[in-house]
């Protein structure tokens, strides 16, 4: 149900972002999507990759601090109000959204977004009860064509 996302701590300096990208590129690991949260001093790089365990080991071996977080991939109808309907379900269930980012790929007029919830299980229950499609890992990478 849930997707494993890697977060990597980066100092806010030139070359900080390319370093992990270089490592993954040289190992032939493709980044499906990513987000970069920034503060003045540091950033948190969030990555979705097909072989997350391999990627985590690789990054840690090279001195990076990596955390694995479970996020939920949701289909979002690509029309006005599409996201709103989904958010209303979440709010009703009193679940908080910590952060969100999107995949660029689209399929059948559905966008694909990744949600980090403070209570993923409660979110999933509420979403399923409202017939919102949760995309698991297998479905995810089928879409990506990997």
């Amino acid at each position, binding site marked *: 149900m849930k997707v494993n996302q890697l977060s990597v701590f980066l*100092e806010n300096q030139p070359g900080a972002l390319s370093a992990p990208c270089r490592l993954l590129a040289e190992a032939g690991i493709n980044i499906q999507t990513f987000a970069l949260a920034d503060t003045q001093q540091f950033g948190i790089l969030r990555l979705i990759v097909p072989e997350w365990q391999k990627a985590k080991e690789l990054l840690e071996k090279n*001195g990076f601090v990596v955390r694995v977080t479970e996020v939920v991939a949701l289909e979002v109808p690509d029309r006005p109000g599409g996201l709103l309907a989904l958010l209303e379900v979440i709010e009703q269930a009193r679940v908080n959204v910590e*952060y969100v980012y999107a995949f660029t790929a689209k399929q059948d007029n559905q966008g694909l977004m990744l949600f980090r919830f403070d209570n993923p299980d409660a979110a999933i229950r509420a979403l399923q009860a409202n017939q919102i499609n949760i995309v698991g890992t297998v479905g995810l990478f089928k879409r990506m064509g990997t």
Partner: protein
Amino acid sequence: MIKHHEPGPFHPASAMDFLPPEQLRDIQFNRLKDMVQWAYDNVGLFRKRMMGLTLTPADLKSLDDIVKLPFTVKTDLRDAYPFGLFASSMREIVRFHASSGTTGKPIVVAYTQEDVNDWARAMVRSFAACGVHAGDIIQNAYGYGLFTGGLGAHYGAEAIGASVIPISGGNTDRQIMVMKDFGVTAICCTPSYFLHLIERAAELGVDLKELPLRTGVLGAEPWTESMRQRIETESGIKAYDIYGLSEIVGPGVAMECLHQTGPHIFEDMFYPEIIDPQTGQPLPDGSEGELVLTTLCKRAMPMIRYRTRDITSLAADWCPCGRTLRRICRISRRSDDMLIIRGVNLYPSQIEAALLKVEGTLPHYQIIVDREKGLDTLEVQVEVTPEVFSDTVGGMERLQARLTHSIMSITGLHADVRLVAPRTLQRSEGKAKRVLDKRQM
């Protein structure tokens, strides 16, 4: 404005500064005997150590016999927290102060009413030595509270009959406004803070040379002759070095006279020695070594042969002021790792205790000290570990806030906590270089 730097009227308390040497030594020896008896009778740790050396107070037959007595060190005060070294009962103690310990707990010191009066008298002698007198308007910018600087200077300033502004530290713009509007003639603060005041005043279009301010009683941190030159040239004041430490009494252990030849120790109250820090052997006047001090009057918390960790030498040669009190030469360094930041003592081990309290384990860290526009800055870089890494920015910011708060509560200092990537801080074989002090004195 022409500023006059004069001795001012002679204060009776200063009479003790000019005693003939033999008379001074007599007084010191009699007081030392009393003090050792008092500590022996009332301080368990001291009596235990004396018995361990098979010594009694009667074995003190001359001042030179002081070298037979055991030393007191900082860890004794730490281990005795809070009241283990007190000789007086709580009913007789009228004041507490505290200063930085090497761990999470502070060093606690105490005073009877007589101790408070003696301290005020030492401060009166300090002010008198540099020409401050009744009629002066004194701005006391040393921190008031547990720190000995604020109240120490305050009681002395009132006792000499000056008009005291208890402004304490901080709020520089207000300090300058008060200095100008109240017609302040003398200021008490740290030398680096005074430099900061000069810079800020210039930004505000205030020229300190045009104000009646003529005297600075500056201390609580080491400072160089070139800093003094800069202070005096840019403000027109005469800046005098005051020395003290909470374990002994606070400010007023030693003070420069008008001739600025190094602080005269009020050695009828605080007996000085210089020792070799490695061997503990006494060294003659003029040799550089660790300053050791013995309180000759204090009741609540007597200190016998306290190792200050300050490296200096004693000058016994004649000073133009005529005082027969030996002078401390400029303190060049310490024999431990203590830092002084904005006048506050800081041990790297306190930072370690603060980090450990938040994270449960000790991450790699580095302390970076610098000085901007006269003000000391403190940055603590902390490597992020997998245990504390959160996937949300809020989580990391909360970590940063907890670390900052922990450092503040243990040290009393605000530190900029900077989270850094792992393996970016210097490692070394053996003891890593934890402190980078970039301040150019």
